[in-house]
């Protein structure tokens, strides 16, 4: 890549259960323009056809904790897109 490290954010994205099945993958790497948030990651994911069925406002986590759509994300973060939970 020719873009400088500071102008982009590269994160690992995990998909689970129904979202993983719909997308045909459980993880991917995403590079976004900085500054990035959970919402901008989701917009970028939804722009690609394999993941077009992801909801606009899914439940999300950043680095193993629930996050909001406006949570900022940085290079190296692990973003998880969580289908409706069904434990218990």
């Amino acid at each position, binding site marked *: 890549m020719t873009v400088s490290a500071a102008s982009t954010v590269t994160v690992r994205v995990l998909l689970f259960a*129904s979202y993983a099945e719909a997308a045909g993958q459980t993880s991917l790497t995403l590079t976004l323009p900085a500054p990035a948030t959970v919402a901008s990651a989701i917009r970028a994911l939804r722009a690609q056809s394999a993941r077009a069925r992801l909801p606009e406002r899914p439940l999300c986590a950043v680095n193993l*904790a629930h996050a909001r759509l406006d*949570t900022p994300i940085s290079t190296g973060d692990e973003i998880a897109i969580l*289908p409706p939970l069904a434990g218990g």
Partner: protein
Amino acid sequence: MAFLTEQPLDLTPLVARVMSPERGGVACFLGVVRDHHDGRSVTRLEYSAYDAMAEAECERVVAEAEAKWDVRVALEHRTGRLEIGEVAVVIAAAAPHRDAAFMACRFVIEQVKRRVPIWKREYFLDGTSAWVAPRTAPQAVDRSAEAAPDAPTPEPASHTDWGV
């Protein structure tokens, strides 16, 4: 302490972990695999989890219960393939008196359902299967304020708005 296991769950060791001479009340909850869902016959199910986060979230839920009441709580959730009648989740809460034990036990199961990233695939008698979607509206409801560009400074998300 691991909260997730693929092994069959047993209440007894969890009760033993929380009992002590000053705790006179122990409340327990077992979640058991049911043979029906929305009128369809279920033959078995499969739980999958985001393991690392599920462990972290279970730990947070137990810590919150133990901070809220004078209780000791033990929690385990099973993952993988489960047959009808098998135990999917076990909670034991011990307190000096029964009120706190019951309240903590109830709190923990409700929070587990709301917050811990675990999913359930049901296999039906007719050979089909499907991921279980919670009956009440999913998380997409009501997060519009959070998505607004002029949303206030982020704060830790409330534990009540993750929807189940």
